[in-house]
């Protein structure tokens, strides 16, 4: 089922949490709401669920206005950040809750409930824990039970608030993959909130990057990573080096260095900010046509990628570069060496007011 959000506004006191926000979630997709804390992503999720009311705007489920519909009638599954399992109920009763509170007319028979609960527990691979209580479970197990509980009522939409936030790194990775798998199996329209760009990019079909109550960019993960639409998105998606330059006819100049802009040139000319990811910087020992010259200050060579910190000659700012282990060994880099960097790829944004 699709979700359409139209011109949503929400303020908490003086603070604008959502500013005229519109968004469409396609039927069957897994969408990530990505942004720093305080950007309004959780508020948006809670408004979709009906746990929070918007000051203005509409939420439509499958084209039907659901703005005024109470939370208990929206048929959404919601997985809370801290799971919110019922602590006095066994795992079985937790998962059965949504079915057992239905009015007598639409409540399934006891045996049907039992069967459905056990099927869901098998789906999350925890059927052997049916008699356990929440405080006997690990974080990852609680998360999966919370998911099973929300699926038990056969929701039309699944909403997850920081689903992996409270787990340790290893469990998080496993669960992430598992959730993706699960979504591919059941194809339920799902929205999850995260502040972890890696999580958003890896798991979702589409990513919505939010900042201060507005949407900065919507797109497929590779789209967003390859073609960030704003300086904020560029910076939020990973480490980046910032240079200042000038946009010319078909190229951008950074000091004496000129980089061709083919196809993706920003409209207009003038002062611009240039962002280059560490792994898009090529290090060489030859001087010709270099963006900058620097001395190596640090080398972090643990893992498949070697990270090098350079002190730029002249300005003295730090430049982060990342290269493969092979390249690193070929170049025989050592602390104190003077090397030259040039970008393979960069993102250019005209500075505010510069293109007038």
């Amino acid at each position, binding site marked *: 089922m699709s979700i359409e959000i139209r011109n949503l506004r929400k303020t908490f006191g003086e603070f604008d949490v959502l500013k005229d926000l519109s968004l469409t979630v396609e039927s069957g997709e897994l969408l990530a709401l990505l942004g720093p804390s305080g950007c309004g992503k959780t508020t948006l999720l809670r408004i979709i669920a009906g*746990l929070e009311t918007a000051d203005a705007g509409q939420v439509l489920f499958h084209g039907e206005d659901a703005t005024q519909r109470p939370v208990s009638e929206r048929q959404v599954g919601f997985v809370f950040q801290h799971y919110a399992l019922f602590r006095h109920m066994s795992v079985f009763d937790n998962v059965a*809750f949504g079915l057992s*509170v239905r009015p007598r007319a639409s409540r399934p028979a006891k045996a049907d409930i039992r069967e459905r609960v056990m099927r869901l527990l098998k789906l999350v691979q925890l059927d052997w824990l049916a008699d356990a209580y929440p405080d*006997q479970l690990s974080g990852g197990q609680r998360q999966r039970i919370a998911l099973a509980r*929300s699926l038990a009522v056969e929701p039309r939409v699944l909403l997850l608030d920081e689903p992996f936030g409270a787990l340790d790194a290893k469990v998080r990775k496993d669960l992430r993959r598992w959730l993706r798998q699960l979504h591919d199996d059941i194809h339920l329209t799902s929205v999850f909130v995260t502040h972890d760009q890696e999580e958003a990019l890896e798991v979702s079909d589409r990513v919505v990057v939010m900042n201060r109550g507005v949407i900065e960019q919507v797109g497929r993960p590779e789209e967003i990573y390859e073609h960030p639409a704003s300086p904020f998105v560029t910076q939020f998606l990973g480490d980046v080096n910032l240079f200042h330059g000038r946009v010319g006819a078909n190229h951008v100049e950074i000091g004496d260095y000129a980089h061709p802009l083919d196809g993706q040139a920003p409209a207009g000319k003038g002062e611009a900010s240039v962002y280059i990811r560490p792994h898009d910087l090529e290090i060489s020992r030859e001087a010709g046509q270099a963006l900058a010259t620097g001395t190596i200050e640090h080398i972090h060579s643990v893992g498949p990628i070697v990270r090098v910190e350079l002190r730029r000659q002249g300005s003295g700012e730090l430049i982060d570069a990342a290269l493969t282990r092979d390249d690193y060994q070929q170049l025989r880099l050592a602390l104190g060496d003077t090397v030259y960097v040039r970008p393979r790829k960069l993102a250019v944004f005209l500075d505010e007011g510069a293109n007038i």
Partner: protein
Amino acid sequence: MNLSSATDRRSRSTTEPAWVRLTLTALALGYLAVFLLTPLVSVFYEALTKGFELYLAALVEPEAVEAVKLTLLTTVIAVPLNLVFGVAAAWAIAKFEFPGKQVLITLIDLPFSVSPVVAGLIYVLLFGAQGWLGPWLAAHDVKIIFAVPGIVLATVFVTFPFVARELIPLMQAQGTDEEQAARVLGASGWQTFWRVTLPNVKWGLLYGVILCTARAMGEFGAVSVVSGHIRGETNTIPLHVEILYNEYNFVGAFACASLLALTALLTLGLKSLVEWRASRPAAGRGHTELLARAAAEAKSPAQGKDKDDKGAPGHVLAETY
């Protein structure tokens, strides 16, 4: 793990010398004996000093029986009232935001901060013969002061905070996540309250009710002001004890006092039981089964990988014993 090092938590580096420990322990025990144990023992000693028959006779004497009846009646009315209003107030305060919340919290604490005698006087001032509503009540032949309704009112007032005060911090600590989860799952407000909110606070609630009951039975000050001390009619046990004592009927006074002391002991016993039950996590079915499963899981790393320490066999073991 070495068992002896696990059970003996004392170590030389963190412990005072023997004489300090013994002195402090003796002081604490001595204090308890003088101020708590001796009075309790003396009540029963005085009550039984003239023999068991006289003790029993003092208890079945009609005025004593009436006093017991009145005390029970008062308790049976006051405790349920405070249970309902206490839960309602705690629920409103802990789970919702509304203007005037602080005022409500202060009001709930009022009976604790005001002297019970003052509380009694308020009712006399309101409902007494010379009080604001006195003439109207007299005209309609309703007796509140120097009658049972006054005693119940005063008791309700004095014992009001017990349930609410017990529940508010508990409910606040639990937050509203579980209620929200219940709502999203389609539960109505009532269902959420009965099936999620109330079960989560049941031990705290029981604890509050026990304290409330003990106080309702033992209240003296406020009740004394509104009762009028009519023998066999408006005397509760505490008031009856006072009258007997003032008449130098020590056996009678202490016999009745021993009833209150017994109630207190019973309350303490119940309270400890409730605390013990409440401190145990998710009360237990299937623990042995779980133990076996947890052990099996610990052996198979493929399944057990996302278990943290809390779910490890040791945790289950600790619970089973």
